[in-house]
């Protein structure tokens, strides 16, 4: 899922100064799963914003709504009647959802209430960890299903680097596994260490953000 985290509330409050009626919009998909922007979080943030704005001497009216998916036009359209009654929106969706609202309702200021931070999995309750960076050239077939692009701090293709700590942890954070350590262990368990001896050539990053804004065109699906 796409994971996001709340922005510091004062940062949102700063944006809302001068507004009178604000809509806080959640998304019931990824950001609900990662407890950042689902209905629960919308209903938590709304009272906090009301309180913060009163403390800030800028009382505002805050209403709420949570869309099934904020990144699909069909669902976004459902906001049309409400949006005319507010003068600003705080979106708790990922950057895609925020932009969908901003595109459909371009006359109303849309402020992000979260920072979108990763493509991650819920490893344990209350713990999410990156699994993918959308690099556009998947190597999971060669790395035994463990991603060295998303999960190695240096995105090394011929790891592990010299920074592996005791216990197989990363040099930058002792709570992060050295993914190459895990790849090695899995390779050993499967009798595939030989596959790690081959030198992986420089990667083509162009089918991702590095190649300019991504655009996918599928003629078979177009009208």
């Amino acid at each position: 899922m796409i994971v996001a985290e709340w922005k510091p509330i004062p940062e949102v409050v700063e944006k809302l100064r001068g507004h009178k009626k604000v809509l806080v919009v959640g998304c019931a998909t990824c950001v609900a799963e990662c407890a950042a922007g689902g209905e629960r979080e919308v209903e938590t943030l709304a009272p906090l914003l009301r309180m913060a704005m009163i403390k800030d001497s800028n009382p505002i009216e805050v209403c709420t709504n949570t869309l099934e998916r904020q990144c699909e036009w069909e669902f976004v359209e459902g906001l049309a009647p409400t949006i005319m009654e507010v003068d600003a929106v705080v979106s708790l969706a990922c950057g895609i959802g925020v932009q969908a609202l901003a595109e459909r309702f371009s006359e109303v200021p849309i402020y992000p209430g979260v920072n979108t931070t990763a493509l991650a999995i819920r490893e344990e309750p209350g713990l999410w960890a990156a699994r993918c960076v959308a690099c556009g050239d998947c190597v999971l077939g060669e790395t035994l299903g463990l991603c060295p692009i998303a999960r190695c701090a240096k995105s090394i293709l011929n790891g592990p680097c010299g920074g592996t700590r005791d216990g197989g942890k990363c040099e930058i954070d002792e709570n992060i596994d050295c993914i190459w350590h895990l790849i090695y262990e899995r390779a050993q368990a499967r009798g595939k260490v030989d596959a790690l001896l081959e030198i992986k050539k420089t990667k083509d990053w162009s089918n991702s953000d590095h190649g300019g804004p991504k655009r996918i065109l599928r003629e078979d699906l177009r009208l």
Partner: protein
Amino acid sequence: MSDRFEPEILVLYCGRALADHNHLPEGTKQGAGFKVRFVMMPCSSKIETRDLVKLIEQGVEGVLMVPCLENKCQFLVGNVRAEKRMKYARALLDEVGMGADRLSMAQGWNLSSEELMALADERASAVRPLGRNPLKGVKL
């Protein structure tokens, strides 16, 4: 005016925290210099962060959550969850400038109604210096 300020305290308690399950305190009571409303919860874990935040938004001066003892929860970890939510909600209130201290928690077991009232009294004394909840009576 400060002499007449009577903080409004909300006590959310786990029914299991009290000794006499047949006579659980309910509704609003007048304490010595404060008002208190008792609400019995089937388990303290029923209360989510948003509820705690909303209660303060609705104007009460102080909330006291009384879960049962840590290893006595009928759902095993309900009271542990409640404690973590309480901690998070307190941090959020701090972040918006309301101060964390309007929310608090005290574990209980085998409490009498009087003892619960005494806890509410303690709570009232603790929030009195914070003054009136600025959200009290605000219509939005």
